[in-house]
C-alpha cells in the first residue's frame, strides 16, 4: 500500500467534488449557449411587415388643396400650391389612425387634434405627425419613403 503524503496538505476539494462541479459547469454552459442560440433564432431577422417605400400615383392625379388619405399605407398625400407632401396618419399618442378634418386632423381614439401641418392643437398627443420624404420615381409616380422623416412644411415642387 502507498504511504499517504504527510508533509503535503490534503487538497481542499476531493476528486468527486471537482469532477461533479466541472460536469455541472458544462451543463450550465451548454444550457446558456442553447438559450442564447434560441433567443437569436427568435429575434426577428426578416421584416415581413408592409413595405416602407410606397408609390402613390402620378402628380397630375392630384388637384391643388386635396388631402388624400391612404388608409392601408397609413399616410395622407397633400397637394398645396407649394407642392406635394406626405404626412403620417398614425397618431403619436397610441398609434390609431387619424382622420382628415377641416383645418387638420383628429384622432378618433382619444381626441388628439392636429392642424394642417400636423402640429398638435389639442388632446393627449405628445408630438406632431411625421412628414415623410416624397420624390418622383423613375416611372413618374410619386414615391413616399416612410423611413425618411423631413421637417414639417417641406414640399416637393413638381
Amino acid at each position, binding site marked *: 500500500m502507498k504511504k499517504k503524503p504527510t508533509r503535503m496538505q490534503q487538497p481542499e476539494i476531493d476528486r468527486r467534488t471537482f469532477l461533479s462541479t466541472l460536469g455541472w459547469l458544462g451543463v450550465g454552459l451548454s444550457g446558456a449557449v442553447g438559450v442564447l*442560440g*434560441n433567443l*437569436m*433564432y*427568435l*429575434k426577428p*431577422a*426578416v421584416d415581413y411587415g408592409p413595405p416602407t417605400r410606397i408609390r402613390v400615383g402620378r402628380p397630375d392625379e392630384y388637384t391643388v388643396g386635396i388631402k388624400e388619405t391612404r388608409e392601408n399605407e397609413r399616410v395622407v398625400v397633400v397637394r398645396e400650391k407649394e407642392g406635394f407632401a406626405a404626412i403620417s396618419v398614425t397618431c403619436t399618442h397610441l398609434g390609431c389612425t387619424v382622420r382628415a378634418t377641416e383645418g387638420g386632423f383628429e384622432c378618433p381614439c382619444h381626441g388628439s387634434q392636429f392642424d394642417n401641418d400636423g402640429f398638435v392643437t389639442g388632446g393627449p398627443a405628445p408630438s406632431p405627425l411625421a412628414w415623410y420624404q416624397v420624390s418622383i420615381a423613375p416611372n413618374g409616380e410619386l414615391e413616399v419613403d416612410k423611413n425618411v422623416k423631413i421637417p414639417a412644411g417641406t414640399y416637393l415642387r413638381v
Partner: protein
Amino acid sequence: MQAPTPTPDKRTAVGMFFESVYRSIFRYGRLPRDGEGASYAVFNSLFLHIHPVKVAKHSLRFTYTFGLGVIATCLFVFLTFTGVWLMFYYFPSATEAYGRMLDLRSAVDFGFVLRNVHKWAAEAMVFFVVLHMARVFFTGAYKPPREFNWIIGIILLLLTLGLSFTGYLLPWDQLAFWAITVGTSIAGYAPVVGEPLRRFLLGSDSVGQEALIRFYVLHVVILPGLLSIFLAVHFWRIRKDGGLSHPADNDTPAIKE
C-alpha cells in the same frame, strides 16, 4: 412513502423549507443508497417509472436491443422541439411558404440548423423505427404476451410514415409539389376508396393551397398528437408485458413484475 434513513436534524429553517419543497416534488430524498431506496425513486418519478423497478440481467446487454426504440423516441422529441421552433417562421400559404423556407435557410439565425436537424432527424426516425421493428421481429418479441404491443408498433410505424409524407409538402418547392402529386395519385389507384381518399387529402383536384393547409394541420397537430398517445400506450405495455422479451417466457406463461 417513508424515507428509510432519516438524517440527523442540523439544518436551518431556510434549509428545511427548501428540503420540504424538494420533497414535495421528488418525494424521495437524495440519491438512493439501497435497493429499497432505488425502488422508491423509480416509483415516484414520472420519467424513471417507464422502467420497471427490476429488470432482467440479459436486457441490460446493449446488443440485445441496440437502444433502437429509445433512439426513435429521442428523435421524436427532437422533431417535436425543432418543429415547434420552425413554426415561428413557417407560414402554410401557397404564396408565402416557399419564401419562408428560403428565409429560414439564409436569413434567420440558426434557421438552417433547425431546419436541417428537423429534416435529418425525420429521415433517421423512419430508419430507426424500421430497425427497431426488425430487432423486435428477430428476437421474437412480437409473440404472446406482446402481440398487442406489436400492433401498436405497426400503428406507430404508419404514423411515422404519415408524418414523413405530410412534412414533405411543407417546403412548397418543386420536389414537394411533385412528390405529393405522385403520392396522392398512387393513393387514388386504391379500389373504391382511392379517388375519394385522394380528394380528401388534397381538399381539391390538384395540389394547391387546400392541400398545403390540410397537410400542415395533419403534420403539426393531428399526427403528432396521435403518435404521442400511441407512444404512451406502447411504453405502458412494455412494462405490463414484463419488460423486454426473454427466453423464460416460453416456459413460464405467468408474468412477474
